């Protein structure tokens, strides 16, 4: 029996994808299907004075036109957020279709449902909406000004919450006593996740059984069902609702959230008693999928004369967009402020975050969610401190790392890091990149007028989201455990049920590897089932690098139950005491003898219990719920080298080295793939991406013509190294790998570019580091930094 753990098993899900047989939501066609087209606001902020649907209704093939008021009148309520930040947090209503007022460009106003897609689109243009445009506010800092337009009626400002963490007084005192303070003002620009599959939903109401099936491109079908039935549509009984997330073409966070279109398709299907499908056009995705990041921050890092970090003070204004999306309040707070210690022993940290409403698309979790923002801030300010102190950036980091013997380590921002070896990862990365050699090469190149740079990013993340009691105390409105089920069939074939969802992560392979390994059966005898509330008991979905750490642990618990019961059956059949029976490589054996029974025979016995132990139920089908004890803490160091073309400002990444410690690795091929993709997205934010609005709230980057993401020829191949420090508190010793690359790489690339240009007086360039911005920084004369670094607002306002 091969050892499946740690083996680069080829993915079982691939066959359907490489042959064009993947089944994404938009691929599903149901009898009697109708098509929804949503009429969206072109105004960032306006009162709806009148909606005339008559012309659209008269179009041949149109079945219905509904407005927000129609839905509210029928008992549809506001879509809630899943998190509260303090009791004073403002949570204005978010109706699936706007009622009374639109709050951002793209806000849905009406839906046209027709017998085919083209008719729905044509008729949508016939819906006449009379608006009274209102002044809009786009920039989060501007939204806090006393005379700013107020986004929501009934609120007296745009402040959603004002949150702080850490000991303010102690931090202020330590800062005042510091030998050196490095100050860094930064914009972590708004980006658009852009999973390549546009979001899609199909509502399918069966009037005969009074059951609703919702197909949706979601990362967490159970959570969608819970939010839909418990909050948005209380008349809809949860046990009569099935939510299916079939193959999903990437998520990166943006498909976690409960979106209006899911409610619209479900509700309209019941109204029309026909299936209703909606699929976003890409230009629609840009104004409806939740965006990411969008922070404006000031960081101050205090150091003593020896270069020890003594205090970190952070002030952040976080743009939340027009509505509170599902995870939105948690992202710039619990997932950001708590990570500001980074890998360092900084004893005093204080952070203040103001969450602000603006007339823009809602902002929520995007790959890394808060942790990339924290890492970017910490790693940029640490890099700048090294430059200002004339210290080697690797050595400043090393000097301040929490040491391996200091774990578990309580940070001043509420987390307990359970394990780590930060210096080990740094050393390995330095060795892989050939640090000394590069510094020599850099010095040589500079003499020839070439600009080479090297950048570091030593990151930490809190993953495996999350211990329910901890997040409950913080304000989560749901638990964040996971379920796992093992159903052994009479022939010994096994179905695995997980409440996590795979949309590229390869769960159908990784989870099968675990089960095949634990039960000693061939991989092809294991089928992983996910993404269907009618098949999986419950689940919280996939985000926050939680699937293996939490979902995998639940499967391990269920496996324990299966093995315990199987052992009882085996002992009975072998006429031995249970404790004398061992289970090795798929066979139960009486220790020290050659008396054995195979797992398959035990399975058959469980379902044909003619000769069966007393007091044991027939069947071999076990469920478990696993609630983690703590977050997991993956970490690592990424180093990249860049060359900046002084004539064009183009940044080319020469090499990219990543050393990550994600704990034990089940499938190294999949883990490396996750790291690669993560790096690419972080590089995208550093060099290419940025969502831009004009001052009236019109999005200027509303298509792939205007929003740039990394293409194949923009990136190098990556050099990935691993270090393994197992997670001490889950049964697999795993931590999660989905977000590490993105969390690390943005700061890494920007640090490298600044390293290349620092001697030219440039200490920062705001992201994305486009050729124009780099060129301008280089050509702004002696005070290049100031010219290039003028923050342009959180959304990179044009």
């Amino acid at each position, binding site marked *: 029996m091969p050892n499946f753990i740690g083996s680069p098993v080829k993915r079982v899900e691939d066959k359907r994808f490489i042959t064009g047989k993947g089944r994404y939501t938009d691929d599903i066609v149901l009898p009697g299907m109708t098509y929804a087209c949503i009429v969206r606001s072109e105004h960032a902020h306006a009162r709806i004075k009148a909606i005339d649907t008559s012309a659209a209704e008269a179009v041949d093939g149109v079945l219905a036109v509904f407005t927000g008021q129609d839905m509210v009148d029928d008992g549809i309520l506001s879509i809630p957020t899943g998190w509260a930040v303090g009791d004073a947090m403002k949570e204005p209503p978010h109706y699936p279709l706007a009622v009374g007022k639109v709050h951002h460009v793209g806000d849905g106003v009406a839906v046209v449902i027709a017998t085919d897609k083209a008719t729905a689109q044509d008729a949508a243009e016939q819906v006449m909406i009379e608006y009274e445009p209102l002044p809009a506010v786009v920039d989060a800092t501007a939204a806090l000004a006393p005379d700013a337009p107020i986004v929501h009626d009934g609120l007296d400002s745009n402040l959603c919450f004002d949150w702080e963490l850490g000991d303010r007084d102690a931090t202020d005192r330590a800062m005042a006593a510091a030998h050196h303070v490095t100050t860094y003002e930064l914009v972590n620009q708004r980006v658009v996740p852009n999973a390549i599959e546009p979001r899609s939903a199909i509502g399918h109401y069966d009037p005969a059984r009074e059951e609703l099936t919702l197909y949706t491109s979601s990362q967490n079908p159970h959570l969608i069902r819970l939010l839909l039935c418990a909050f948005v549509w209380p008349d809809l009984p949860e046990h009569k609702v099935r939510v299916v997330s079939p193959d999903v073409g990437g998520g990166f966070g943006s498909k976690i959230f409960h979106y209006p279109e899911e409610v619209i398709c479900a509700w309209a299907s019941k109204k029309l008693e026909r299936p209703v499908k909606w699929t976003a056009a890409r230009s629609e995705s840009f104004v409806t999928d939740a965006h990411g990041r969008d922070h404006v921050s000031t960081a101050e890092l205090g150091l003593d004369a020896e270069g020890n970090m003594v205090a970190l003070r952070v002030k952040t204004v976080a743009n939340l967009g027009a509505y509170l999306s599902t995870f939105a309040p948690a992202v710039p707070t619990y997932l950001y402020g708590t990570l500001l210690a980074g890998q360092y022993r900084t004893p005093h940290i204080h952070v203040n975050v103001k969450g602000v409403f603006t007339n823009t698309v809602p902002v929520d979790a995007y790959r890394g969610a808060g942790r990339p923002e924290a890492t970017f801030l910490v790693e940029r300010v640490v890099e700048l401190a090294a430059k200002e102190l004339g210290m080697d950036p690797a050595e400043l980091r090393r000097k301040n790392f929490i040491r391996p013997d200091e774990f578990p380590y309580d940070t001043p921002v509420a987390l307990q890091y359970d394990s780590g070896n930060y210096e080990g990862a740094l050393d390995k990365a330095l060795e892989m990149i050939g640090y000394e050699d590069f510094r020599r090469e850099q010095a040589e190149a500079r003499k020839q007028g070439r600009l080479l740079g090297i950048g570091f990013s030593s990151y930490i993340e809190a993953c495996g989201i999350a211990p329910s009691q901890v997040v409950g105390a913080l304000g989560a409105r749901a638990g964040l455990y996971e379920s796992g089920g093992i159903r052994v069939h009479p022939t010994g074939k096994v179905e695995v049920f997980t409440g996590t969802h795979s949309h590229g992560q390869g769960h159908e392979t990784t989870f099968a590897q675990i089960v095949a390994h634990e039960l000693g059966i061939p991989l092809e005898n294991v089928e992983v089932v996910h993404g269907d509330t009618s098949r999986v008991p419950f689940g919280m979905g996939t985000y926050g690098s939680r699937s293996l750490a939490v979902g995998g642990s639940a499967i391990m618990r269920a496996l324990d139950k299966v093995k315990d019961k199987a052992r009882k059956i085996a002992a009975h059949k072998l006429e031995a005491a249970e404790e004398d029976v061992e289970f090795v490589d798929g066979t139960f054996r009486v220790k020290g003898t050659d008396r054995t029974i195979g797992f398959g025979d035990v399975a058959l016995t469980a379902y044909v219990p003619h000769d069966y132990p007393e007091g044991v139920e027939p069947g071999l089908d076990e469920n478990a719920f696993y609630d983690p004890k703590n977050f997991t803490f993956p970490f690592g160091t990424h180093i990249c080298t860049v060359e900046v073309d002084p004539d064009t400002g183009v940044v080319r990444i020469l090499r990219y080295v990543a050393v990550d410690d994600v704990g034990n690795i089940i499938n190294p091929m999949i883990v490396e793939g996750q790291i690669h993709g993560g790096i690419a997205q972080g590089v995208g934010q550093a060099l290419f991406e940025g969502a831009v609005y004009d001052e009236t709230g019109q999005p200027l980057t509303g298509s792939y013509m205007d929003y740039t993401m990394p293409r194949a*020829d923009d990136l190098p191949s990556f050099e990935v190294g691993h270090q393994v420090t197992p997670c001490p508190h889950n049964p697999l010793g795993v931590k999660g790998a989905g977000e590490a690359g993105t969390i690390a790489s943005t700061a890494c690339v920007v640090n490298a570019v600044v390293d290349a240009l620092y001697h030219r007086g440039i200490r920062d360039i705001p992201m994305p580091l486009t050729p124009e911005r780099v060129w301008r920084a280089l050509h702004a004369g002696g005070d290049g930094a100031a010219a290039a670094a003028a923050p342009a607002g959180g959304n990179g306002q044009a």
Partner: protein
Amino acid sequence: MAHISITVNGKRHEADVEPRTLLVDFLREHLGLTGTHVGCDTSQCGACTVHLDGRSVKACTVFAVQADGRSVTTIEGMSADGALHPLQEGFREEHGLQCGFCTPGMIMAAADLLQHNPDPSEAEIRHALEGNYCRCTGYHNIVRAVQYAARKMREQATVEA
């Protein structure tokens, strides 16, 4: 309505379509060939890449009527005889896909490259695929997958010769 006759994956199809029907919609909605995906509305993402008379095109920039009388190959036609195309095999062997959404378009674009350049360098592969977005893999393993296929196709060619 316009009457068209298109050979798709070796099979002839006759249909009446609206002149504005895009080739990708014709493939997906009329023929049920949903392996060809739509990822954008500005011909930037490449998820809908198919072959038209043997050359790769983005099926969202071609009207169905423009394909009248011509031959189209989609991802479904790459393993029509039951055996995987070396590129399909390469994407699996080298983990060149994650969510799978861009994969059909990537494979079709790469197949066009390998027809003209049986031994492309990494830079040539990256250049040839710059019209296709992948948001999952960072392209690293896609490059490996194409290299795998190129190697295998060269070996097959040698054996046949």
